[in-house]
């Protein structure tokens, strides 16, 4: 049945193609062709541009709603984990039995870690990150078990308590914290990548709109030769509208890109630096307390401490005067601790743990809180930049599409009287 039906259809198509070719050579045909080609390029250009801009807005929303909050959660996770470790070590140094205050601090840090872990897991973008976060979760459970074992043994006066605490701290320092740091740096890189995407101009869409302008010019020239009329109002209006659309898109994306650049350099980049500074401060603090727990030769540990501090001040630069000042008084406190270490060990411990003014614990808390405040402020810069960029882009997809349709309609309306002359 199908084989019988085919030949007439082919014949039919052939005949209509011949007719079309003949029609296209007539002036009426040329007018129709110009109308179709010009209006189509307008609409296609508008669609492509609108779609690209829409994708940028989606990406921009994803940064604000997902990627950035996830990076923030990962950064909080790191801070909470190291705070828990610091609280455990402090409790150990100040005598095995925890005071209600140190116990409360430890439990608060664990709760903060659990919250950050839930936030981070919910925003986790891929399998590898979920796997890493599950690993942190499992090891955190093991860690708390070891800390409690240490506590139970310390209460009985058994030195094995310190072995459990060493094991717990090793787990934290060599496994949990590096994993959390990696989750954070990976996600910060994703934030940066997404920001770049938002700031990119929609090149293909703009080229297509440019093509529409060229099509209008070429169409006008052809019509001028055929009909001897200089300007077609419809085509002129279409050209103006398309050029306006191009201008709008270029200006909006330029403004958006400027905001994004600000958000990347003064937001994302600075958060990276501050987070590294925070990690270095935590490592220096761990080193400081660990050298009291180990109570051996501190030459190597001192070298490591000042290495961390040097890196820390380099990261801070001149951008965070409060944190830099706090680091200076912390280092002064550390020097008092080292001076007391050999002659008067209990005084060194007291210096390290003191939360009075001048105590290392107090100074470290100031460093930590000023870094945290800087991170919060920088986070706002990051998010505001991205949100502002979104503001510039907000109406561009609809706008370009509407303008493109108006241009196409202007072409059709403008050419209709020319075509009518032949009907």
């Amino acid at each position: 049945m199908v084989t019988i039906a085919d030949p007439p259809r082919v014949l039919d198509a052939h005949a209509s193609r011949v007719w079309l070719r003949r029609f296209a050579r007539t002036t009426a045909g040329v007018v129709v062709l110009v109308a179709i080609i010009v209006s189509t390029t307008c609409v296609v250009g508008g669609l492509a541009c609108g779609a690209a801009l829409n994708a940028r807005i989606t990406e921009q929303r994803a940064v604000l709603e997902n990627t950035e909050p996830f990076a923030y959660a990962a950064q909080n996770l790191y801070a909470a984990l190291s705070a828990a470790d610091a609280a455990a070590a402090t409790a150990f140094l100040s005598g095995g039995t925890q005071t209600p205050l140190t116990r409360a601090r430890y439990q608060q840090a664990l709760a903060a870690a659990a919250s950050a872990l839930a936030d981070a897991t919910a925003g986790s973008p891929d399998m590898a990150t979920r796997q890493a976060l599950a690993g942190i979760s499992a090891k955190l459970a093991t860690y708390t078990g070891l800390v409690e074992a240490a506590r139970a043994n310390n209460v009985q006066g058994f030195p094995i308590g310190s072995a459990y605490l060493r094991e717990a701290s090793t787990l934290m320092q060599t496994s949990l914290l590096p994993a959390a740091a990696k989750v954070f740096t990976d996600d910060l890189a994703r934030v940066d990548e997404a920001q770049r995407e938002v700031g990119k101009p929609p090149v293909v869409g703009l080229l297509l709109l440019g093509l529409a302008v060229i099509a209008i010019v070429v169409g006008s020239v052809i019509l001028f030769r055929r009909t001897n009329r200089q300007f077609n109002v419809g085509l002129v209006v279409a050209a103006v509208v398309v050029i306006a659309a191009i201008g709008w898109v270029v200006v909006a994306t330029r403004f958006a890109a400027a905001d994004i650049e600000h958000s990347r350099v003064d937001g994302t980049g600075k958060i990276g630096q501050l987070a590294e500074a925070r990690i270095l401060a935590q490592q220096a603090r761990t080193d400081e307390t660990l050298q009291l727990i180990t109570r051996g030769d501190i030459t190597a540990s001192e070298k490591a401490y000042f290495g961390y501090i040097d890196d820390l001040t380099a990261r801070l630069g001149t951008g965070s005067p409060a944190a830099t000042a706090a680091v200076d008084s912390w280092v002064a406190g550390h020097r008092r601790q080292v001076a007391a270490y050999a002659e008067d060990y209990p005084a060194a411990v007291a210096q390290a743990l003191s939360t009075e003014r001048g105590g290392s614990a107090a100074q470290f808390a100031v460093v930590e809180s000023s870094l945290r405040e800087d991170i919060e402020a920088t986070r706002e810069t990051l998010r505001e930049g991205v949100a502002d960029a979104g503001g510039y882009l907000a109406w561009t997809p609809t706008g370009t599409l509407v303008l493109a349709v108006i241009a196409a309609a202007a072409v059709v309306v403008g050419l209709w009287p020319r075509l009518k002359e032949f009907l």
Partner: protein
Amino acid sequence: MKRRVATVLLATALTVAGCGVSATPPPSISLGPAIVRPAGAEEVTAPPQAPVADCDVEASLRPGTQPPPGDMPPESTMAKIQERGRLIVGVDQNTFMSGFRDPATGELAGFDIDLAREIAQKIFGDPDKIVLQVVDAGQRESALKSGQVDLIVRTFSITCARKENVDFSTVYLYAKQRILVPKKSRIDSAASLSGKRVCAVTGTTSLIRLYELKPKPNLIEVPSWTDCLVMLQQAQVDAISTDDVVLLGLAKQDPSLRVVGDSLGIEPYGVGVAKGKEDLVRFVNGVLAQMRADGTWERLYSTWYSSLGPSPGPPEPRYQD
């Protein structure tokens, strides 16, 4: 018939329309158990120490007349220590009863700590003129060599190999190497350690002796004896083998353990002194001789090691000149 075809077509159309959502569930992640070991825990594969020619292990220098506290002979090593104001001693903080950190006070205590304080007492007339520096077992010789500490009082077995690098006082305690296992374990001798995982501390004579056992057990080395106990409690090793005084301290922290087996060997403990400080060796030997004579040794033994059984009495010193 037609209706059935229509149904099939409709069903196919619906399935095709719903494409993109697959029936296979998304992959879920899975983790192995989080195994934790103490920092520095390693399998022992290479022999811990090369064998050394025999020597007279226990012989040490004869003490001269003891100078009174606070009045050390000029130019002597003790005079330099006196000038500095403190005696620096390398000790342990993780071995219960010998040298350990009391978690309640944060202070170091034990037989070795008291012995070190006794030496400070004899130099300054004040047992508190002392700096206690914690030294790992593997670092005892290098801490003396570098001058980081004046003395090592840290369950330090006198051996010929060590005597090539450092000097020793006379013997202040004899220990016997034995085995610590869970009460339910079938291990009851050195022979039954075959194929079992046994823990010991890096750089100790206990580890060397375990390595020489035939057949050799699977050895794991860690930085301190409490790390071994942690691994035993976490079922990562089957037994710990070292000196009875150390094992006693470990067993006191875990009532589910017991010490088994005959002695694998005798360990004579001495105070370690850097090479070339003969005056300090003679002085320490003088202090030890006084402690043996005036009952101080017996007092320390009954304070720290009474649960090992009745005191065997202080070891007889042997002098080489």
